[in-house]
């Protein structure tokens, strides 16, 4: 299947986005931002629809709308936007706005479908390059600020006590998240951003006790899901996003089950070691 250009492009873009989402997802979960990521995806959708309407590249509209909203959310403070009422109002408003922009433009149906459900196999070479540069940039920044970001995400009270610049970290992270969400939309669509942004990291959390390893496992699950999704979709003609979401769900529940089994086995092991010590 890799003899086709469109499949090569899909693999290239899908892989780097999966790696990026795997890394950032670990922090999204720790900072309890998964619903904010979802909100970004709806805001990004309206941005992309706007771009379609005025004839820009959709990536431009996505990035514009989502990064602007990242600064807005960061400025007001994340706490307000973590409230479910705020989220549902903002989310549905922007979904409606996107709908309006699309209905005003000529290429209604295909554009809307691609933005809502993803269109990884329809990606052009120029888009692939955009995605690769952006993702590589996001990954580089995340790795450079790994230590303070880890501190602030997993132990916010401690990070403030150690006088890290927590506000700057918070806003900076939201901007990175906005960029990451915009790219994930191009692969899996606005409605399915959860699947790359949170499922791999959530699965990884159940399999390790180290943040570094959690990042690696999360990246692995993300990449496996995208590769598997592309391959299965190529041979069956069912949508890519369907297979990616299904595979990620399998990983997540598999990890959950594995954790549960391990917890059940452990008390018995402890009992036997106590017995031998006595």
């Amino acid at each position, binding site marked *: 299947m890799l003899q086709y250009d469109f499949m090569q492009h899909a693999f290239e873009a899908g892989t780097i986005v999966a790696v990026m989402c795997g890394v950032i997802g670990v922090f999204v979960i720790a900072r309890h931002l998964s619903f904010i990521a979802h909100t970004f995806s709806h805001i990004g959708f309206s941005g992309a629809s706007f771009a379609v309407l005025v004839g820009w590249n959709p990536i431009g509209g996505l990035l514009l709308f989502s990064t602007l909203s990242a600064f807005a959310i960061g400025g007001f403070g994340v706490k307000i936007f973590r409230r479910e009422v705020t989220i549902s109002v903002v989310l549905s408003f922007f979904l409606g706005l996107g709908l309006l922009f699309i209905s005003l433009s000529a290429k209604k149906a295909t554009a809307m479908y691609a933005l809502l459900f993803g269109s990884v196999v329809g990606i052009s070479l120029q888009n692939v390059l955009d995605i690769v540069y952006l993702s590589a940039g996001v990954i580089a920044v995340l790795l450079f600020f*790994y230590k303070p970001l880890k501190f602030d995400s997993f*132990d916010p009270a401690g990070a403030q006590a150690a006088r890290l610049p927590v506000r700057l970290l918070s806003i900076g992270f939201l901007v990175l998240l906005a960029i990451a969400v915009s790219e994930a939309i191009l692969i899996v669509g606005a409605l399915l951003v959860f699947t790359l942004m949170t499922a791999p990291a959530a699965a990884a959390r159940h399999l390790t006790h180290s*943040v570094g390893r959690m990042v690696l496992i999360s990246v692995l699950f993300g990449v496996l899901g995208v590769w598997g999704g592309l391959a299965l979709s190529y041979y069956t003609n069912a949508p890519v996003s369907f297979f990616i979401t299904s595979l990620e769900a399998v990983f997540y529940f598999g990890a959950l089950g594995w954790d549960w089994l391990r917890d059940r086995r452990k008390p018995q092991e402890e009992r036997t070691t106590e017995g031998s010590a006595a």
Partner: protein
Amino acid sequence: MSVTAPAAALNRTTEGGPGSLPAALEVQAVSVHLGGKTVLSDISFEVKPGEFLGILGPNGAGKTTLFRVLLQLIKPQQGQVRMNGGRTLGKAVIGYVPQSRQIDPELPMRARDFVCLGLPHPLRPWLNRADKEAVRRALELTDASHLADQSIGRLSGGERQRIFLAQALVRDPKILLLDEPTSNLDPGAQEAMAEVVHSICRTRGISVLLISHDVNLINRYADRILYLTPGQYAIGTVEEIMQASVLRKLYGSAVDVIRLDGKLFVTTSSQPDSKVCFH
């Protein structure tokens, strides 16, 4: 306002504390207003290197706010805070263990990695030999070496507090601020925690400011106490402060101190006043 208690002298040399050294911490006439309310008014005191200062007072007296001022998280409207004889020092000089800390039971981190978060270099994610040694020492000092490889979310309250303390210690601070580190612990764990803090204070010469509601615990370990009530404060030894006359001035109402079996109890003779902190 400072309550002038009999013999509650400010610059009193405490036994064991080297009196001639410059103060580790000087608070000069600090006032703080938050949300249109006066939280701290005209507070002055100093802490010697290696001194253990216990801080007592009812909820809402401004104890946590005082710590936030010392950390420069809040800028006081009046007065100033000087450290180590006025020399400005790096951020590592204060170790702070905040009052409330949510720890997710599923936090994927071992206690050792949690302590590593506190290392002072801002960006370098890997550990060099000096870092590993600092982490090992901090765990040893807090009597937590045996917890190093356990998952932080699975530790008990007392074990967690010792790991929090180790995270603050790994920066090699000169001053430790501990905000109610014993509040959610059972009596045995409270004693163990105070014991650990006391020995760190003595062996490393770190000045400790510890907030607690247990006057008897503080009595056993602290060199002096700072008693804060809304709008008032007093500083001195436990004997000097825990007197009915001083507490009456602090609270502005009738308060009695009862001594029983070497333990102190605070009661009110009038109708129960929710503002009084019963020890």
